[in-house]
Each structure stands twice: as C-alpha cells, then as structure tokens.
C-alpha cells in the first residue's frame, strides 16, 4: 500500500495539497502541511496529484 510523507522543513505553505486532497492534508497554525490522521491515502490518484503540484517538493509518495 502506498502512502505519502510531508517534510515540514521544506513546506512553504502554498496550500496546493489542501486544495487538491483536503481529506488527506491540512495546514497547522503556522500554515505548514500536516497529514490528517487515520486517512492513509483515501484516493491514490488525488494523493499523486498533490505530490505533483506541491511547489516546494515537501511531499513524497512512499511504499509500493
């Protein structure tokens, strides 16, 4: 099963992931990406799209 990791040191808070896959991503009080717990990849296509659209490269697909 595939998943996604988010590197908050790289994130610039553009919010593309939240726009694309709001079930999986959120932004904290600092505007930086957080993965929403308990939702491991509800829609792999949207997750893949969020990774593609992330401007800073903070998101990575993991697993197989």
């Amino acid at each position, binding site marked *: 099963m595939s998943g996604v990791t988010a590197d908050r040191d790289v994130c*610039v*808070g*553009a*919010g*593309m992931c*939240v*726009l*694309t896959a*709001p079930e999986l991503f959120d*932004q904290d*009080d*600092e*505007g*930086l990406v957080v993965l929403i717990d308990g939702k491991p990849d509800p829609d792999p296509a949207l997750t893949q*799209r969020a990774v*593609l*659209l992330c*401007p*800073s*490269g903070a998101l990575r697909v993991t697993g197989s």
Partner: protein
Amino acid sequence: MGDVVTDRLPLFPFLSPGDDPFTPVGGADLRRLDGPVTRVRLPTGGWTWLVTRHGDVKQMLRSDAFSADMARPGFPLLRQAPPQTPEGRRGGFIRMDGEEHLRLRRMLTAEFMIKNIRRIEPLIGDVVDGALTALQAGQRPADLVAGFALPVPSLVICHLLGVPYADHGFFQQRSAILLDRTAGPLAVRDAVTGLRSYLGRLIEDKRVSGTPGDDLLGRLITERVRTGELEVGELIGMALLLLIAGHETTANMIGLSVLLLLQHPQVWDRLRAEPAQADAVVEELLRYLTIVRQGLPRQAIRDVEVGGRRIRAGEPVTALLSLANRDAEVFDAAQEFDPYREAHQHLAFGFGVHQCIGQPLARAELRIALTGLAARLPGLRLAADPADLPKRDNSIVYGLAELPVTW
C-alpha cells in the same frame, strides 16, 4: 558570458499581438525561438536563457541552483535597476533565497491558507455586491476595470492588511510605476520610497496605538515585531509586496477574464446557472490568461542542466510561464480556452518556494467576482471594438487598461 553576440537574438519580453490579448507570444516571435531553452536579448543589454516547456519551468523553479536575488550582478533585468539602498529592499522576500526567504514567508503562510481565506469570503462577497451596486447606479457604458476589476481586490487587500482604502489613489499610482518596465530608475526609486514611507507611518501608528488591530499588519506587529522576531523595516517591505501583489494581479485577471468570457457566452451562462462549476473555470482562466507574461527571472548559482542545456553558474535564466501553460505535452489543444479541461497543472502562480502565497485569496476573489458579475449583469456586453482595447503591454502584470461595457 561575455562572448555571446546578442545583436541577432530575439528581443525579450515578447508582446501579445495588439488585437489579440489571449495570445501570449505572437507567431513571429515563436518562430525565432530555436529551442525550448534558448537565448533571448534583454532590453537592458545582455541576454537570458528563456525556459519555455512546462516540465523544464517546474524543474527550474523548484531547483535551489537558482537565485531570485535581483541585486546580484548579472541578474536578468527588464529595466535599469533603480539606485537603492539595502533599506529600500528590506522585507522584499520574493527577491530572497534559502532560509532568509523562508523566515519571512512563513510569517505569512497561515494568513493566506485556504481555511482562513474561507472566513473572509463573506467580506469578498459584500465587496463584490457593493461594487456592482455602484456600477449599476452609474452611467452606461462604464469602464469595468475602474469600476469593478480594480476596486474589488484593492478593497479586499486593504481590509486584510489594515490599510485605509481611502488612500488607494496614492498606492495604485505608485504600484503601476513599480510594475511598469519602461519606468525610469528615479521614478521607480521615488515610488518605492513613497510607498515605504506611507506604510512605515501606518505601521508606526498601529504600533504606538496600543491596539494594533485585528488585521494582518496588526497581527504581525503584536506577534512578531513586539516579540523581537521581525524588524519594522522588514514588515514595511512585506506589506509593500502584499499591497501591490494583492490588487494588481487579481484586477488584471478579472478584466481579461470578463473580456474572454463575453466571447464564450455559454461559459458566461454556466457561471450563472452552475456557480459550483466556477472553480474549474477559474483554473482554466488562470492557465489560459497567465498574466505574468514577462516570465520569472532567476540566476544560476551553480552549473545545472535544464531541458538538455548546460546552464553555467552566473548565467541569467527566465521561466516563461505563459508558454509553459500552453505546452501541448501537458495540455491537450493547449491554445484553446476549454473550461471543461483539467487545468490544475498550470503554472500561473509560479512554482517552487516562491509560488504565489496569496493564491487561495486570488482564487476566491476571481470566483466570487465572476459569479457575482454573471448573476447580477447577465446581459453584460462589450461597448468597444475588442481590437481597440488598451492593453498593459509594458506592465510586469499583463491586462487591460480599460474595458468599456454596458448591460
């Protein structure tokens, strides 16, 4: 770098054909580009690598091999740099790299994130309604740029920042100079100085008032300046960026979008009948219109390959967003306006760490402004020959200077 003969290179920036604001680069200029990464001549002398493919632009803008710092010798400039002190550039984080940039940008990210923009959507709706009421009460034909496209985002960014809208004449005039690539260096310097002094006084008044206020500048004073994390000179530069970017960009998008939609009446009708579909229309408008048509300038700080070209440390590079957004490898029938397409990969907001911080605000403003206009003025039509509309050819942000309409 000194051995490149620039005389024979195509002159950049390219202009849209005078009668076609929807073609970012005319056929004659396109034919002169001899590859996806090619040299073009700059109006300030010298040259820059022009990167035009979608994938190459993404790679370039996300790479840390490029600097955005305009003060570096050899940076690709479209106009002569104004005589500036370091103080005049403080807080201007779009021209910073690495940690210096991240430190300032991150103080603003939460302000513009989707859930916070959602909270101000009712305010945007009120602003749009108010502008439309004033427009309807006025004379016909009316200039939609002066009466709607410009005041709506100006009022919203003023409210968000805590800047008095009553001063809009002052800051709009100076913003236009800062965005005009034909403005002389002294005019640019005076505009910067004037705006920084104005914002400095505003920030100082908020700071000494004891109650800085529940707006972006007030919050940054309370949470960042008073805690010693941010200096006032930096806050002034950040406010300057947000004020200019916050109204000029959306204003030009609204004007061009309306002109385009009036030529696609079925899409105009759809905005009224199915406002829930507006998000997809807005994304395609962003792709198709790409108002930052003069590209994003950078300078390589180490050797790097882009699109099969070896770019050496110190060489200037420009990402041409408008052509990347017409890349047929990514967008089918890329030259067509198609509001049903998946336009989400567009680069209208740039890419990389400098990607537009205000994009959730821009999307909300465009959606609410265009659906509001379509609902209130369904019979909107042009009151001028489209070929005669004055364009902002020399502005870093392309758009229409006027849009006469009636209804």
